[in-house]
């Protein structure tokens, strides 16, 4: 193994890739070579560092200097000044963040704020394409411990005691889910990783897959051991080309080292994983629709029960876990359930990964303890609202989540508190909107999305999303009628109660919360035929 005096980490997450990070990485390698430093300095492409809007970003270790956005033209200066002469290039240090110090340490509290990285522990600090680096950070140690020192029932017990609940949105206790499948009697069981993240505003799973693919493999293998499955599938969105490529590479590496395949760690336990590529359907994030899609069908949800835990893929007992849930598994095994319970809240231990988007200064990926307030996320980590505008509302949980007004800025961000506020934590998308936006226009945008993505199998969802869109469209073109508000509320209730799957049940949530908190704007559009913000074209 070769040693280097300095490492330069280049963020290789998708947002940085389209900011031009590949060109920056190549320029760095060339320039370092030109200066004769190739044997002293190593360039590593890594997973998401967090601040996507500053991309491409790079970090120079051991100093921990954070540069961004870095252009190809900046590279010679950084190499000559910083890497050759040891002088930090002040001008290029990421300064748009709320930082005070001259040198920005990557893990300095000024930058991370109240963040806590468990799921993202390896993102941005190692090369995701190197299994050796993952092992160097305790990777696969949890799998080793499980298969060689623990009984499957003990593994399930640890996960149950940790209080981990599913991070895909439904917040079902993970240990309990595993137990159902473990107890099912069958000749074949499966582990499915749901990486079909289609919720607008969410891209956390993509960046976890790209930043730390081995932790997903390890989590799946541990799940397989716990429930008695020897086969896993990762269903990844077809649009996520980099995620698919990096995941495949990681699977190949793990197989090569015997961390996947037959007789893992000589324990007699065998497990292997295949990738399945989606083809663009939001509903496939629903677990039974995802199962249909893997089987080669239209992704239409099945009626539940029976649940996938006992009747899943090809009718066999199947565990379906979200990417983020699986990334939590090995830290829990290594550090114990008590450690995990030390973060977050009593009912929701651990952390949550959020993607901050919309009208906010620092957009990107963050990981915070459960129970942090919306205000802290927006103002302490997100840097507030740009352009001197006022905060109007935040949509939590993606397009199927609710919209919270200013009065609810202090609500704790966990699954149960947000549900009590009529919203959802969901997949962790946080869309921040300033006071320039019209409620009806945004609601119409949400409903256009659901109208398109409803799979059409059940009537309440198919017709309900269509009608809700129509009502919004009429309101924003001055044709709204007084009875529409009541009609919307009734439609929403029928959809929530009678739809077959989560899509139809959740689709009216944004509309209902907007009616609850911003009723006067709907009234203005319908009764006065005016748009208070003047932005929806009325």
């Amino acid at each position, binding site marked *: 193994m070769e040693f280097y005096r300095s490492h330069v980490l280049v963020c290789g997450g998708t947002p940085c890739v*389209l900011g031009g990070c590949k060109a920056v990485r190549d320029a760095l390698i060339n320039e370092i070579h030109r200066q004769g430093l190739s044997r002293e300095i190593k360039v590593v492409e890594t997973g998401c560092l967090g601040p996507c809007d500053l991309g491409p970003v790079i970090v120079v270790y051991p100093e921990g200097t954070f540069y961004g956005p870095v252009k190809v033209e900046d590279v010679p200066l950084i190499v000559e000044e910083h890497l050759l002469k040891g002088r930090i290039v002040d001008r290029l240090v990421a300064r748009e963040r709320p930082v005070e110090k001259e040198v920005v340490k990557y893990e300095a509290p000024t930058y991370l704020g109240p963040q806590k990285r468990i799921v993202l522990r390896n993102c941005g600090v190692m090369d995701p394409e190197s299994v050796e680096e993952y092992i160097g950070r305790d990777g696969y140690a949890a799998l080793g411990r499980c298969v060689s020192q623990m009984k499957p029932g003990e593994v399930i017990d640890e996960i149950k005691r940790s209080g981990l609940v599913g991070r895909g949105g439904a917040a079902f206790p993970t240990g309990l889910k595993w137990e159902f499948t473990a107890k099912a009697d069958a000749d074949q069981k499966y582990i499915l990783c749901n990486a079909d993240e289609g919720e607008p505003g969410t891209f956390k799973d993509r960046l976890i897959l790209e930043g730390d693919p081995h932790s997903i493999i390890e989590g799946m293998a541990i799940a397989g051991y716990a429930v008695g499955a020897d086969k896993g599938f990762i269903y990844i969105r077809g649009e996520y080309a980099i995620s698919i490529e990096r995941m495949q590479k990681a699977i190949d590496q793990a197989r090569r080292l015997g961390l996947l395949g037959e007789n893992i760690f000589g324990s007699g336990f065998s497990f292997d994983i295949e990738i*399945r590529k989606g083809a663009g*359907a939001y509903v496939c994030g629903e677990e039974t629709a995802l199962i249909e899609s893997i089987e080669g069908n239209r992704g239409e949800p099945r009626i539940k029960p029976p649940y996938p835990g006992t009747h899943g893929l090809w009718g066999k007992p199947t565990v379906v876990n979200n990417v983020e849930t699986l990334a939590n598994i090995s830290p829990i095994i290594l550090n114990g359930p008590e450690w995990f319970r030390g973060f977050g809240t009593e009912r929701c231990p651990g952390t949550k990964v959020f993607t901050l988007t919309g009208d906010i200064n620092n957009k990107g990926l963050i990981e915070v303890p459960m129970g942090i307030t919306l205000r802290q996320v927006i103002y302490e980590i997100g840097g507030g609202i740009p352009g001197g505008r006022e905060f109007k509302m935040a949509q939590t949980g993606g397009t199927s989540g609710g919209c919270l007004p200013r009065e609810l800025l202090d609500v704790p961000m966990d699954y149960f508190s947000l549900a009590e506020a009529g919203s959802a934590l969901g997949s962790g998308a946080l869309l921040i909107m300033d006071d320039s936006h019209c409620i009806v226009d*945004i609601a119409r945008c949400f409903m256009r999305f659901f109208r398109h993505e409803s799979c059409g199998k059940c009537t309440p969802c198919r017709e309900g999303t269509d009608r809700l869109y129509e009502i919004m469209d009429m309101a924003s073109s001055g044709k709204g009628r007084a009875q529409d508000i009541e009609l919307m509320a009734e439609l929403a209730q029928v959809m929530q109660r009678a739809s077959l799957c989560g899509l139809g049940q959740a689709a009216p949530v944004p509309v209902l919360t907007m009616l609850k908190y911003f009723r006067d704007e709907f009234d203005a559009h319908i009764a006065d035929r005016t748009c208070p913000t003047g932005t929806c074209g009325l």
Partner: protein
Amino acid sequence: MITIDDILAKYGRRSDALIDILHEVQDAQGFLTNDSIIKVADALDLPASKVYGVATFYSMFSVKPRGRNIIRICESAPCHVLGAPAIISALEKELGIKMGETTGDEKFTLEYTSCIGVCGVAPAIMINDVVYGNLTPDKIPHILSEYR
């Protein structure tokens, strides 16, 4: 040049590989023709209606001819909030077509897509496999010029 036969030979008669097969056939041909749908159905021993049903369910598949360059636009809330409608107008104006249409020279098709997962740099579009983010209407002509 990859043919449908090559693709079918690679996957055998596994009907659960249908979506992967359709991805590859479309990559080779640009869109899914009626002939190719029947051929895939025969090879997998499935009714053609079933294959057609799958092909029309997923937004990444097309059963209609498309241009050589597919421009996909996300118009969901995060992109909408940060100005996607203005990007759509700029694309329509620059190409002289409406959303869902293909230019006369068959060079470009404009399509809506669901979220492409780069909301940190919204509004964004995807041209073939390349994503462009942090867009403003004045950046559109320059981006398109690379594909003309």
